[in-house]
């Protein structure tokens, strides 16, 4: 005993004097060279660990000792490196091999740094392969639709891509692509999102406990990262489905002949420059337009020809160049539009009159970003970005007429245009610093120049020798400046306790008015047992823009407007408490309760069904809201059957009682999307290497609407609203629509040809709404009856993908 004590005492100085060294590097995919986000890196035997950042970079600072690294990532074979003596700062690049059979050891490793052990709560990382396996309407895989299946996230009405996260509205979600915010993320009135799953590498959702580096929205952060591109060879997919056709191509760019020759000789030379391009377009209109033209011409005996249609397209492109292990430059581009068009031609059949009319309505996003990443040393990593993002919509209606009478021909033409846009120019820089393994520090700053251009209507005409070109309505261009700085510190003093705290501070300046904000964030994790964690969090958020929309579908005319002197910024405070439990390294259970309080929300006043950008402030009221609930997520990531069960119980209320801005007479009322119960079950089963099947079941209590339960007649002024009646509404959103439920099924078959086994053929079959439940899209009263309008019955679909 004495000797033991002496030994311990003698070795203490050695322990105290032991130096710390940093191991750092990147975790990449062996096949493509793609850097992996969120991979777990654990150092044995101390079990100190971390995860890779958005650039695939990790950094661990450990005491001088014998170390063995263990690296794992979902969908990849775990990597266990040879033990080595850590006596200096060391760079280790980890290369992982794809393996879809997830092993328990991967889950265990992951849970050592994420899930149970992570201080971050209310966050979910959804693997892109899981998203691709979820059955979807028309076979069109959709990232936002997959996120809607998570607890705490509610969809709007049938088919809508709108997201209502913990009682917040659809404009309270910060959706970013490669760090750039997108204002409108919907195609086809919200039935599909703008994200092409083939171009996406990683998706992370934050519903609460927002890291201090994020700000600008109240309810959620969705961080979507695009793939850099295959560094070792050329690959691609061509998918033909009922909704759209997609093509993705990625590969390296070799700048010298030697590397190019090595590639051709299959020597596996990694390209320093990679590209990734994905494009998608619907094809329905290409088939229907000529048919419509032929039919209308036939029915009018050649007098009139009408064509028209709708389509949407996306283009995602990314170019990445790695200068060295310390420097990387990338450029991202997204361009997508929805287009509705019509052309009507009236032909001259001898009466001397002909006319042509063209209409084109398009709306969409364009964004571009240049990103520079630099590793200063093993402990400090920097990402700097300049970017722009723009959302716009245009309507153009043009008419040409020609009339011949008494040998004289008169021509006239007229074009009316209607457009609006919002554009941001951004610059941001972010630092990550890991001085020791107990400390992880993030800090940075960003600046955004906002331009809001509300509607502009212009008319140009040329008739009867008169011509004019005039702007009928020109909304004032609004310019705003937004600047933010943040600091965030994660401190792990011991294994059972971890603390994360931070501050996001900002200034928003518009029209001579400046709005400051200080947004504290804090999160704590306690680990009473190895597989059980208790977490607490608090976050304060501010939002300086609103989306004015009064419809359950995503309309292109949904307008983004900034705060004004009369309409202050929205603020939200959210507190959450939860437990996370790892069950036998097979299943992870998390249960969270939250309370959220929101102020300065805006809502349309009674009778306001639309907005004119000139006077939108007069049509809205400012008020408050609150939401609380409990969420449960049971997730399985290992074994042939994977998936999750998510359940949410919640209440969401609003109250607008400020003087002159009362709604519902100032009394609290249910929010439109106050769904008390929400259940999602999604399962995927890998039968063998060739076949996999999937099923998704969704159940939710109905959303809310306003119904006039009583009617009267106005005898005094003899005035009515509907026919002979005056409807009496005693409370806004007093009616709960019928419950929503549906089952989706899917099956995927992977085939390789005998002649060209390197090519893969994937056939996906799915059935949306398999038991054909007519879920309500709208409910309305007609006569003595209540009616519901449903959109989608059972919809089978099939798609084919050729992978090369």
């Amino acid at each position, binding site marked *: 005993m004495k000797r033991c004590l002496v030994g311990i005492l003698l070795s203490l100085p050695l322990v105290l004097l032991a130096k710390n060294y940093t191991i750092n590097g990147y975790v990449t995919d062996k096949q493509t060279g793609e850097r992996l986000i969120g991979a777990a890196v654990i150092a044995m035997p101390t079990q100190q660990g971390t995860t890779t950042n958005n650039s695939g970079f990790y950094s661990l600072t450990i005491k001088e000792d014998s170390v063995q690294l263990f690296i794992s990532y979902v969908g990849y074979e775990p990597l266990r490196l040879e033990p080595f003596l850590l006596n200096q700062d060391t760079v280790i690049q980890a290369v992982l091999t794809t393996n879809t059979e997830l092993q328990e050891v991967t889950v265990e490793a992951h849970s050592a740094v994420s899930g149970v052990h992570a201080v971050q709560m209310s966050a979910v990382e959804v693997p892109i392969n899981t998203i691709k396996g979820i059955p979807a309407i028309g076979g069109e895989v959709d990232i936002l639709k997959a996120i809607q299946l998570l607890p705490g996230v509610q969809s709007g009405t049938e088919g809508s891509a709108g997201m209502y996260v913990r009682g917040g509205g659809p404009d309270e979600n910060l959706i970013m692509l490669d760090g750039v915010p997108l204002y409108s993320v919907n195609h086809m009135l919200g039935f599909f999102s703008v994200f092409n799953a083939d171009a996406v590498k990683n998706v992370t959702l934050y519903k609460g406990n927002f890291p201090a580096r994020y700000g600008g929205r109240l309810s959620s952060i969705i961080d979507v990262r695009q793939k850099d591109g295959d560094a070792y060879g050329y690959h691609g997919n061509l998918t033909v489905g009922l909704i759209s056709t997609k093509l993705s191509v990625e590969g390296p760019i070799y700048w010298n002949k030697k590397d190019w020759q090595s590639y051709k000789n299959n020597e596996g030379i990694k390209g320093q420059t990679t590209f990734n391009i994905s494009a998608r377009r619907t094809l329905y209109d290409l088939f229907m337009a000529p048919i419509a033209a032929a039919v209308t011409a036939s029915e009018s005996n050649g007098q009139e020809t009408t064509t028209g249609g709708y389509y949407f397209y996306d283009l995602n492109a990314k170019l990445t160049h790695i200068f060295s292990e310390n420097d990387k430059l990338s450029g991202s581009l997204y361009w997508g539009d929805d287009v509705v068009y019509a052309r009507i031609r009236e032909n001259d059949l001898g009466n001397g009159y002909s006319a042509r009319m063209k209409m084109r309505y398009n709306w969409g996003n364009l964004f571009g970003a240049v990103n520079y990443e630099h590793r200063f040393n093993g402990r400090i990593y920097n990402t700097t970005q300049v970017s722009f993002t723009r959302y716009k919509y245009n309507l153009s209606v043009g008419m040409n007429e020609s009339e011949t009478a008494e040998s004289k021909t008169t021509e006239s033409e007229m074009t009316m245009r209607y457009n609006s846009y919002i554009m941001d120019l951004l610059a941001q820089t972010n630092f990550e610093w890991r001085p020791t393994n107990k400390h992880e520090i993030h800090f940075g700053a960003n600046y955004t120049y906002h331009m809001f251009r509300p509607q502009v209507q212009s008319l140009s005409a040329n008739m009867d020798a008169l011509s004019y070109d005039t702007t009928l309505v020109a909304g004032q261009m609004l310019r705003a400046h937004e600047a933010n700085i943040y600091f965030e510190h994660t401190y792990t003093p011991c294994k059972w306790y971890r603390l994360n705290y931070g501050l996001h501070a900002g200034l928003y300046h518009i029209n001579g008015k400046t709005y400051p904000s200080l947004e504290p964030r804090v999160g704590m994790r306690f680990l009473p047992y190895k597989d059980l964690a208790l977490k607490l969090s608090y976050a304060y958020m501010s939002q300086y823009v609103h989306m004015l929309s009064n419809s*359950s579908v995503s309309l292109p005319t949904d307008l983004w407007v900034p705060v004004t002197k009369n309409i202050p910024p929205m603020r939200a405070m959210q507190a959450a408490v939860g437990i996370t439990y790892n069950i036998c390294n097979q299943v992870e259970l998390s249960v969270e309760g939250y309370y959220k309080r929101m102020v300065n929300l805006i809502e349309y006043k009674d*009778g306001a069904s639309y907005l004119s950008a000139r006077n939108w402030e007069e049509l809205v009221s400012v008020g408050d809201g609150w939401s609380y609930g409990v969420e449960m997520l049971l997730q399985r990531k290992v074994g042939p059957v994977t998936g999750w069960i998510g359940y949410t119980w919640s209440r969401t209320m609003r109250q607008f009682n400020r003087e002159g801005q009362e709604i519902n007479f100032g009394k609290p009322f249910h929010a439109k999307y106050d769904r008390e119960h929400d259940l999602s079950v999604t399962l995927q089963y890998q039968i063998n290497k060739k076949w996999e099947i999937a099923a998704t079941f969704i159940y939710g209590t109905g959303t809310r609407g306003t119904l006039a339960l*009583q009617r009267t007649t106005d005898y005094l002024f003899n005035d009515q*609203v*509907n026919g002979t009646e*005056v409807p009496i509404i005693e409370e806004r959103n007093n009616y709960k629509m019928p419950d929503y439920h549906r089952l989706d099924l899917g099956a995927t078959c992977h085939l390789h040809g005998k002649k060209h086994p390197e090519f893969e053929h994937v056939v996906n079959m799915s059935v949306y709404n398999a038991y054909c439940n007519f879920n309500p899209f709208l409910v309305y009263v*007609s006569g003595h009856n209540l009616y519901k309008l449903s959109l989608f019955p059972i919809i089978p679909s099939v798609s084919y993908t050729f992978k090369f």
Partner: protein
Amino acid sequence: MKRAFLYILTLLFVLSSCERPIEYEGEITEPKLVLQAEVSEGDTIVKAYVSRSRFFLNDSSYFTFTDYRMPSATVEIQRGGQAWQKMHTRTIMNKGRQVDQYFTISLDSALRAGETIRIRASHQNYDTITAEQTIVHKPWCQVWDFNGQANTLFRVKNLSYVELSLLLQNYPYEDAILGVSVSCALDIRYKSGSRMDHQRETVTYIRSYDQLIANSDNTTAGQTSIGSRYELFFHPGYSNAYFLNLEIPYSNMSYLPNVEILDVTIDSMTVSFNAHSDASYLYRRSMYKARNDYNDSDFDLGAEMSDIFGQEEDVQIYSNVANGYGIFAACSRYKIVKYNVKTVTQ
């Protein structure tokens, strides 16, 4: 054309829609008594309608008129703190058919500004309802034309609208919301091709671009309408002399071929200045919004699309009746009537 275009857009997106009736599974509310009455300064007779509401899935057809008045109700009125007085039912018949039925009472003295009136109605099958109003002062205004000449009120401008100029002086009363409404009977003489004719019409729509008219929807509204009567409201706090220019547009008969308007004679014009209590104004405003009776001359794409998807927020009709529905309004009017004022030849 624009609307048709938007309908094409809607149809393209609706892959397969289905309408079907559903069972109502929500709260079933019971009918309540409905009180509708209006009182003015100087009234010696008070009139009130009492009826009952009905559940939206019951009773009357959407398109036919069914009488839900309650002649068997007991209706009483109280002035100040005096005793309650019972109102009597009165039925108006015409050719053997009932054309009107209401409760009425003759007062000992005319209603005075500032006086508080209470009404209550009861029936054995319904909760007793009550309402209270304070009589508002009758407003006073003098009308002048824009050239500073009294009694030369109106000018026909561009043969498309009548311009009415008012000099508003010393409106001292702050207990009410002031509005103005107009009824103008015109005789329009026109020529269509070689044919000459004239058309009579009565116009009640007025508009103003004047800053004095409230256009904010916070506490006062630029415009409301009851039945076919339009009314413009002033900004609250107005009290000083100010020239107010109103326009009364009338039909330009563009539906006739080659029409040329020769002149317009104003047979008669009634300008009414109305002082409303808050309840009176709020009821009128909510009824107006519920009918969505906007006059939007600009094409607003957002409005069109939102309208197509039927997603407007429903309007809650204002009521100040406790335990029931309806309105007990105080509105005092000051009218100016002019006859055969002017004929203008273009």
